[in-house]
């Protein structure tokens, strides 16, 4: 089996090389058959990588511990779903998984465009396959997942497997890496289209139109991946944090920032033919940040709680990044004349400028986070002293940036294209502005003094009201015209322009996330050593420890405390924080108990136990659930944006300057 797996990877590598050579040669020499065969080679690569990944999964599910990778990442007593997810539990497997996802994306992209974009598809396929080749080199020659343990006729003792790290045996964690990977790998496709279009000097925006859905879907995966990581940290790590600005967390955020900037700035290009160079730069940075993120998590470049085994693959990644970035920069510089803007900025108070600032802020965030993450390396290179920046630095910087971005989320969509009149500014912003000021005043009167929290709540209300008013105005017009009830009119409105109203829903999700994060300003906690019968007070709750129990279930030993929760003297709930000791890899793990409510979470961590005494940490996290609700709204909004609009529209070009333009239908 392992030989077939290795062979499949090796063959896939050869076919990927053929696909690159075939596409480029076929295009240059005008040989359609060569291009076609290269296309088919892409499908073959998918098949071969699938075989290899399938063999690996099969080995996991059947507990074949002669595979070194299976032995060190799985365990007989693990539930089957975690055996499958153990595929991406370590370096070799996750890189194989990366390769497999890329081959899937590549196959779908090539298949869907097999009859379209004949001018640049060969180059697009070649670029996808170049990235594929890089990962196949890692899979085949550097960190092969098919290393075997010496098990033969004479050696009969096959170990039981040391098990997946217990903190990863957790549902959110089983799907967090694939989500993030889908988001990381997916940006290869728009990048390849962009570069293909650039190489062949395409005048139009065909690559943007073709990859629009790819980009949105990939962005959705990335958002989910980041959110699941945060949710996992909150549920599993025992201190109730969801974001600690750890290098690996940052790595997942960097491409998200630039991808978000890209999603916004392509609208400028579609509508006004502006920011063409900028979009190229953004999609390229997103792609390279994805690769960089992968390398950060896989090579231990910066020390992190996600301590990965150190390995030599760092050099491969650095080389790939250096060559890729150099080629992209050259290509963009060389093709600058083809990327000239068709319109100019006219006013500071316009939709264009709000997009510009949105981009500036997102990119600045990305750069700031990258700077902070790499600061130990930079400072060591400059001054010889390795200096790290902790979460307080990131918070100090990112909270104001985030709040400004939130503000732009509110005002941007209400600015008109080209320029906005003072009259319309007053009409649109008067009511939300006054309401927000009133809210901040009321909160201050109620005794809230936290500056950023006040600002955040004010902006949240402001943005939420502007979004509501957009829906309200549109739906009222439709319901008056078509005699529909208001709800049906809202659905109709959204359906007419799913991208716009889906976008508003995504903004609403972001507002809710901000509300949830602002709650962190009011976190409270208490730590106590308790025995059976003792109680802890953290207003408004009184907690009484009713029982401490212990036991063993094969996979792990467990202790738990039965904590009765009282509020105003009434028993309202019983929570069971638990502490486990996983036997296979001798690792302890806390299982917190959380009482989730919309206003706040009561969060209990069983920190340690000794002689019928338990150390318990109790936290109250205000508003934290709104983060997860916000993410769900964001997902819903993104799905809405993916539904085709009922009214077929092409973005109207308000000013058409230049040549080679399609006839734009004016409908907006």
């Amino acid at each position, binding site marked *: 089996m392992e030989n077939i797996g290795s062979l499949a990877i090796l063959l896939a590598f050869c076919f990927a090389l053929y696909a690159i050579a075939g596409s480029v040669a076929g295009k240059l020499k005008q040989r359609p058959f060569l291009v076609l065969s290269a296309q088919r080679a892409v499908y073959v690569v998918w098949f071969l990588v699938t075989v290899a990944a399938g063999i690996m999964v099969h080995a996991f599910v059947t507990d074949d511990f002669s595979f*070194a990778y299976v032995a*060190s990442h799985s365990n007989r007593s693990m539930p089957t779903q975690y055996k499958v997810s153990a595929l991406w539990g*370590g*370096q070799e497997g996750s890189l194989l998984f990366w390769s497999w996802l890329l081959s899937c994306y590549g196959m779908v992209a090539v298949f869907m465009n097999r009859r379209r974009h004949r001018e640049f598809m060969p180059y697009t396929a070649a670029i996808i396959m170049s990235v594929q080749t890089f990962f196949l080199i890692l899979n085949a020659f550097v960190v092969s997942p098919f290393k075997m343990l010496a098990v033969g006729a004479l050696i009969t003792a096959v170990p039981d497997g040391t098990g997946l*790290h217990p*903190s990863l045996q957790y549902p959110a*964690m089983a799907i967090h890496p694939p989500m993030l990977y889908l988001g990381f790998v997916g940006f290869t496709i728009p990048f390849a289209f962009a570069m293909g279009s650039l190489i062949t000097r395409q005048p139009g925006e065909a690559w943007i139109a073709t990859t629009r859905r790819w980009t949105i879907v990939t962005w959705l995966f990335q958002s989910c991946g980041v959110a699941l990581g945060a949710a996992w940290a909150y549920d599993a*790590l*025992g*201190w109730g944090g969801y974001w600690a600005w750890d290098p*690996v967390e940052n790595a997942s955020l960097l491409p998200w920032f630039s991808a978000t900037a890209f999603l916004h700035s392509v609208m400028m290009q579609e509508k006004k033919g502006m920011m063409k160079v900028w979009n190229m730069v953004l999609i390229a940075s997103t792609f390279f940040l994805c690769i960089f993120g992968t390398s950060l998590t896989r090579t231990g470049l910066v*020390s992190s*709680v*996600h*301590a*990965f*085994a*150190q*390995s030599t693959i760092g050099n491969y990644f650095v080389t790939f990044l250096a060559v890729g970035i150099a080629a992209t920069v050259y290509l963009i510089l060389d093709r600058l004349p083809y990327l000239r803007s068709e319109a100019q*900025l*006219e*006013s*500071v108070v316009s939709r264009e*400028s709000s997009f*510009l*600032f949105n981009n*500036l*802020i997102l990119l*600045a965030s990305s750069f*700031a986070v990258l*700077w902070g993450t790499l600061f*130990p390396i930079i400072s060591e290179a400059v001054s010889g*002293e*390795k*200096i*790290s*920046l*902790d*979460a*307080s*630095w990131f918070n*100090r*910087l990112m909270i*104001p*940036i985030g709040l*400004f971005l939130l503000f732009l989320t509110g005002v941007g969509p209400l600015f008109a294209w080209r320029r906005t009149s003072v009259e319309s500014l007053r009409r649109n912003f008067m009511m939300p502005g006054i309401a927000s000021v009133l809210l901040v005043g009321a909160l201050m009167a109620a005794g809230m003094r936290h500056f950023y929290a006040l600002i955040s709540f004010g902006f949240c209300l402001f943005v939420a009201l502007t979004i509501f008013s957009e829906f309200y105005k549109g739906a009222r017009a439709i319901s008056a015209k078509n005699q529909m009830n208001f709800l049906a009119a809202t659905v109709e409105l959204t359906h007419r322009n799913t991208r716009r109203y889906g976008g508003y829903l995504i903004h609403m999700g972001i507002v809710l996330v901000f509300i949830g994060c602002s709650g962190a300003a009011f976190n409270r906690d208490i*730590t106590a*050593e308790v025995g059976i019968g003792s109680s802890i007070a953290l207003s408004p709750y009184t907690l009484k420890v009713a029982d401490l129990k212990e036991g063993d279930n094969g996979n792990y030993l467990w202790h738990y405390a039965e904590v009765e929760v009282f509020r105003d003297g009434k028993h309202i709930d019983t929570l069971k924080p638990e502490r486990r000791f996983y036997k296979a*890899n*001798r*690792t*302890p*793990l*806390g299982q917190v108990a959380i009482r989730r409510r919309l206003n706040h979470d009561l969060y209990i*961590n069983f*920190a*340690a136990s*000794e002689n019928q005494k338990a*150390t318990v*940490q109790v936290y109250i996290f205000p508003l934290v659930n709104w983060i997860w609700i916000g993410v769900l709204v964001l997902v819903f909004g993104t799905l809405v944006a993916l539904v085709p609009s009922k009214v077929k529209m092409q973005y109207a070009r308000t000013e058409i300057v230049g040549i080679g333009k399609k006839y734009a239908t004016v409908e907006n």
Partner: protein
Amino acid sequence: MKKYGKFGALVVVIVGTILWLATTGVGESKAYYKTIEEVGKMGGDVHTKRLRVAGDVEKGSIVRKVNIVEFTLEQEHRKLKVVYSGTDPLPDTFRDGAQALADGKMGADGVFHANKIQAKCASKYEAKPGQKSGEPQSYPKQVS
């Protein structure tokens, strides 16, 4: 050209604010990575700078008291006594023999006062690149 002036001014204000926040924030949140040996040689600076010291947790040295945890870090036969008094619970990976990173300041009493501890679980090893699986291994297993 007037509007470009306005644009420029806004961009400068935004970028300037970010740079100001970034540079002034460094002072309070930077920490120096030092080995135990370097800590010993730092002299007067040692009590003012925030440090991050890595090492292995000496076997049997962990003493848990109500609000603090005491232990000894070990690196190349040099030892450093550490008192942890932070509010976050210690990570599950923190125990005898684990690789730990203590973040805090050196006290006048010669004990390192940490308010943050990161630990990597040392129970599972993965071969260092270039090492065969039979040889002693020194790198910790990944956590995620």
